[in-house]
């Protein structure tokens, strides 16, 4: 697949996510948009998954540890054929399978339910360890937020993975630098983030998390070093793609009204 196809895919899933949070009057659109390009490349060019066989034992695993970014991953899975696109209309509605925080129950393609932060990487370590010890070919990808790295449980897992040489494990940090109450710098500074992972013996690559060529190059070069887990620190922009949402803390919470949705879709070149 060409980079062009993942660019189109990123547009499509951004549009879905915007419509979903508008319809549901839900939060967290900023975090969905910041990782849209990462997900688009992952699901276009990288992950070995099969919508017809979501439980295929040797499939690659993707865990969304930042579970509040659920809207856009549901959009990805629907577009890839794991479940009908119509399901997206039920996002956050009464009785829906699609909760505001990602939920695996009855949703093909979702490996793990998350929502409370700091849970995905330890689970990913367990999956990677099983694969490693049994010589299975699958890889495990875990998407983390930056604010999530405040959780100590992540650092337990960050210690664990290199000790067990889990080079089938890839962490991706959606480093949009805004968390719940303000910037990461203001709330709890992570810098120097790459140095921290290096000190914990991970192989680190920093990229522009919106540049599809850089994303694809990184994701197709894993493991960066044999015997080491890989981490991609993806510098991103919260709310990316919609000018009035970009880098705005408020869009961690707000839901676009009809007028704002129209404007957002127009900016994406999707007039509807």
């Amino acid at each position: 697949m060409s980079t062009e196809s993942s660019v189109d895919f990123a547009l499509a899933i951004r549009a879905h996510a915007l419509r979903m949070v508008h319809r549901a009057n839900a939060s967290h659109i900023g975090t969905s948009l910041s990782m849209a390009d990462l997900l688009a490349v992952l699901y276009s060019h990288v992950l070995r998954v099969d919508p017809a066989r979501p439980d295929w034992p040797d499939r690659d695993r993707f865990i969304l540890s930042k579970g509040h970014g659920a809207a856009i991953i549901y959009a990805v899975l629907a577009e890839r054929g794991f479940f009908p696109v119509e399901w997206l209309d039920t996002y956050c509605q009464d009785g829906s399978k699609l909760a505001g925080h990602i939920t695996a129950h009855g949703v093909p393609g979702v490996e793990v339910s998350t929502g409370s932060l700091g849970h995905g990487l330890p689970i990913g370590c367990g999956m990677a360890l099983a694969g490693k010890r049994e010589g299975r070919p699958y890889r495990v990808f875990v998407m983390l937020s930056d604010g999530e790295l405040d959780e100590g449980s992540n650092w337990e897992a960050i210690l664990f993975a290199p000790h067990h040489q889990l080079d089938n494990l890839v962490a991706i940090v959606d480093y949009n630098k805004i968390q719940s109450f303000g910037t990461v710098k203001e709330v709890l500074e992570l810098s120097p983030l790459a140095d921290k992972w290096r000190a914990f013996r991970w192989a680190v690559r920093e990229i522009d998390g919106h540049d599809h060529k850089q994303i694809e190059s990184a994701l197709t070069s894993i493991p960066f070093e044999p015997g080491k887990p890989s981490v991609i620190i993806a510098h991103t922009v919260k709310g990316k793609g919609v000018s009035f949402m970009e880098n705005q803390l408020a869009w961690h919470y707000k839901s676009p009204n009809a007028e704002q949705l129209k404007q957002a879709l127009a900016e994406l070149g999707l007039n509807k």
Partner: protein
Amino acid sequence: MRTAFIDTLCELAEQDERIWLLTGDLGYSILERFANRFPSRYVNVGVAEQNMTGVAAGLALCGKVVFTYSIANFPTLRCLEQIRNDVCYHNLNVKVVAVGGGLAYGAQGMTHHATEDLAIMRALPNMTVIAPGDPVETRLATRAIVNRPGPCYLRLGKAGEPVVHQTPPAFTIGKAITVREGSSVTLISTGGMLHNALQAAELLAQERIQARVLSMHTLKPLDNESVLAAALETSTIVTIEEHSLIGGLGSAVSETLSKGMPKGIRFRSLGMPDRFADIGSQECSRRSYRLTPQGISSAVQDMLSHRC
């Protein structure tokens, strides 16, 4: 009990390649027998219970039956949300094992007293909660939980608990074991209180009070049938647990009785009041909570003579 557990787990792991064992760097001189025989299915994750439980969930999602092991509250309360979200919500084959349930580590201080664990584990959906009464029940319970899909909490004592069952009883999860027949009162114990309950029954027999003794090794699902039968047939019920009086065996039995309580039933729960235990040996603490054979026996006699 811990030796009975690990020996049984080794026997099971010989036959069942799904079985893994994770520890949070505790179990020195006990777990080596598993680690040496099954190194590819053993991980000492280090002193990191949250990660241990998450790793267990990840392994279970790949088809393994995973035991997590540590002492006192470390494998439960330290990583409670991982148990709730990662293990119970996904209904995974993770078996949480705590050694030193109750006050087995009494002199080590409050941090090592596991005295609210049953209440907290019992409240989690999908969780089965088991506290075997002696080393024989420990062996049977370990076998039973491997064959029961889904999460389980296995609360063990420590070492040197007396063997109560001279021959292995029939063991079914969710079904109490009648250890002694009796018609005037029923003593229901859980975990390592079984031995004291039985001794209390002997003391009561000397007073011509015939006590039935039930080993309620499974707190969840509770054997409602045996509880209600005991209420009907003996009219007086006393629960005995080395645990807070909030949320454990006494609460579970009273929940059952409140739904189907026949009239004129007397009920009392023996256990620990709602405060942290003093520092002291298990024996000393049991005396202060009336959890010794004498304490249980006198509490029953008080009840039967309407003095409480």
